[in-house]
Structure formats: C-alpha cells, structure tokens
C-alpha cells in the first residue's frame, strides 16, 4: 500500500520484482516461526506429489541423445512454472538448463498432481522433482561407479559428464541412459544438493513458453460446454509469434 502510494507520488515505477521483494520481506516477517529459525530436519516422507507418484520414470527420462525429459501434472498457463521446474531439474541433476525438455501435461503419461492452482507448482512439483532428480542422480552415479570401478563418493558431475578428479575415465548420463532403469520408486533418503551450490536455481531464465508455439498448434479443446462447441485454452498457444 505504502510502496504503491509513494510510487504514485514520486512518479517512480516499481517493477513486479521490486514490489515482490518488498512484499516478501513482510510475508517472511509474519511467517517466521521457531522451526524456520532453528532449521528443518530432512523430511522422513517424500514430498506429497512424489509420494503419490513414486515411480521415477513418471517424472524423468534420460535420453541417449543428450537430453532429459521431465513430466509434470501442472499446466503452463503463463505463470512460467515449466521454466522454473526445468531449472530445478537441471540444478539437481547437474546438467545444463538447455538439456531439459518439459513435456506438456497429458493424462496418458503425466504424474497425477491434481489441480494447477494456488501458486503450488513450485512448492509441490518443484519439491517432488527435486527429490526425483536427486534419486535419479544417485542411480546414475551408482551405475557409473560400477562401470568405472571407482567409489561413488569420488565422482562428480558436470553437465551430465561423470568423472573422478585425477582419473581419466569418464562416462556420461547419455551413455548410461539405456542401462539405467528408472522404473523404481523414489526414496526420501537421498542427498540433496545444497542451495549454496546452486548455479541455475535463483537465476532468471528466459521463459520457455514465450517465443514458441508448438508446430502442430491446433487449439486443444479442454472444456466442452456443448457438443461441438469449444471454449478453451490451447497448448502451445500463439502468444507473440506463430509458426
């Protein structure tokens, strides 16, 4: 309120980000509880959406072509959630952001994450995806350790290349893709990357959905009010350009 009226008086323009930062301070103040200040123990349970869809291959697929497909039950409707989720997956897997392919929701293969509502995509899907990616990373490292004959705790990952400092042997996620079964359930007992090591999360990535419309951008009817009539949003909607 105050920031807004000050801005109007002074004629200064506040960006959404500046406004959000100011507002976040207020929200943080009210939500501070002893638990937050004293630090949180690692959860014994999986994040709810991962608990409901435990199979890792319902979230992630490593492809030999050098990319990672990510599935979510949340819909992109302009909030930028797919871009943020791609960042979270890339971060936890230690691969470049550009390697992540976000797959739009399709009930035949997407995890069931209920509604896309309540500003919950990052909280719900992001935490699920973080654990799913961390599990996947461990499985890849286990496979690599056996293949390279090295201890798993000596291995590091850089953009999908697994190596051990001082050793010439290396193997990539993409080479391991076909021999790494992800038809396994996620575990909550998995090491997560420390936020202090984040390089992708927390940076501003260009939105994946802004420039593009899908090549087969036929409007997809989601809501039918009457037979043959269509009031709907579409996948790959033309926003700024259209192929």
């Amino acid at each position, binding site marked *: 309120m105050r920031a807004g009226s000050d801005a109007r008086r002074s004629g200064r*323009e506040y*960006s*959404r980000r500046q406004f959000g930062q100011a507002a976040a301070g207020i929200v943080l103040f009210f939500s501070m509880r002893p638990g937050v200040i004293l630090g949180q123990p690692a959860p014994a349970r999986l994040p709810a959406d991962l608990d409901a869809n435990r199979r890792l291959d319902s979230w992630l697929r490593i492809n030999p072509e050098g990319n990672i497909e990510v599935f979510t039950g949340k819909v992109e*409707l*302009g*909030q*930028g959630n797919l871009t943020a989720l791609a960042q979270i997956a890339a971060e936890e897997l230690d691969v470049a952001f550009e390697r992540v392919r976000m797959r739009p929701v399709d009930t035949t293969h997407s995890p069931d994450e209920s509604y896309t509502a309540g500003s919950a995509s990052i909280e719900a899907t992001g935490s699920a995806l973080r654990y799913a990616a961390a599990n996947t990373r461990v499985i890849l490292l286990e496979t690599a350790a056996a293949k390279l004959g090295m201890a798993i705790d000596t291995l590091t990952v850089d953009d999908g290349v697994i190596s051990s400092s001082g050793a010439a042997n290396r193997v990539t996620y993409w080479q391991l893709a076909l021999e790494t079964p992800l038809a396994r359930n996620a575990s909550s007992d998995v090491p997560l990357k420390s936020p202090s090591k984040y390089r992708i999360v927390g940076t501003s990535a*260009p*939105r994946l*959905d*802004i*420039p*593009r*419309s899908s090549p087969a*951008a036929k*409007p997809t009817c989601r809501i039918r009010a009457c037979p043959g009539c269509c009031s709907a949003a*579409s996948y790959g*909607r*033309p*926003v*700024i*350009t*259209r*192929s």
Partner: protein
Amino acid sequence: MPETYRIRVNAAEHAVTADGDTPLLYVLRNDLGLNGPKFGCGLAQCGACTAIVGTEAIRTCLFPLSAVGDAPVLTLEGLGTVDRPHPLQKAFIAEQAAQCGYCINGMVMTAKALLDRNPRPTRAEIRQALAGNLCRCGTHLRIVRAIESAAKGAAP
C-alpha cells in the same frame, strides 16, 4: 442473409460466406484459423482481438465483416513466425514481455500500427497508444520497454 465476401488477410485472398454483421474476429478465428487475435471482452474494451485493417488497429470483436471492404487485414500471424519474427516480436521476446500472454496480440498489433504512423514515439506516446489495451498480469513496463527497443531498432 449470408453473403460471400472477398477479403485480403495477411496478403492472401479469402472468400468467406457469412452474414455481413459477423464480427471480423469470428471470421479470422473460426473460418481462417487465425488464433493470434483473442476473444477478450467482446465489447471492444480490452484490445485482445486487435488486428490491423488498412492502417488502423481495429477491435475485431465488434468490427463487421461487411466493413472490411478492400482494406488489407493484418493479423499477428502475418507479422512474423517463430523462425522469422518481426522486430516487434523479437523485442517482446527479448524483454520477456508476457505473463499469461492473452493481451499480447493486441499489444503487438497496436504497437505495430503506432510505429507505422510514428516510427519514433516518445514513451508518453507509447503509453497513450496502449492506454486502451488491458493487461491484468502486470507486464506493462516490459511491454513499453519492448516497443521502445523495437522503435530504436535495438532488438537483437
């Protein structure tokens, strides 16, 4: 009574059979499959349906098909493609000037009409030109910056 109208849209001739008072928007979207223009308010108040008819940015949701006549119609699809975007589209992408994107068709097309008649508008003139285009998400400042950058030829 339905009649057949010949209209020129994005440099292509089309024959459309419809009542003359059919809103141009319905013809563009339903008959020609051009979904760049959006149905927003249906009352010419929000600007989401904007296309350029002749040289003017027009609210196509209330603009009758019979009024098009010989004037060429330009929609977002006629401006550029993903592979070959128009400088305005490039600038909107560079500035990430969209949240949900529903208003953006109108923003881009209104800006196109503005730059066609005034290639070097001031910020005040840009704001004035877009005053009737509503956006509920809040990317207004980015939109203005994108148009300024397109006008300067500064878009990458």
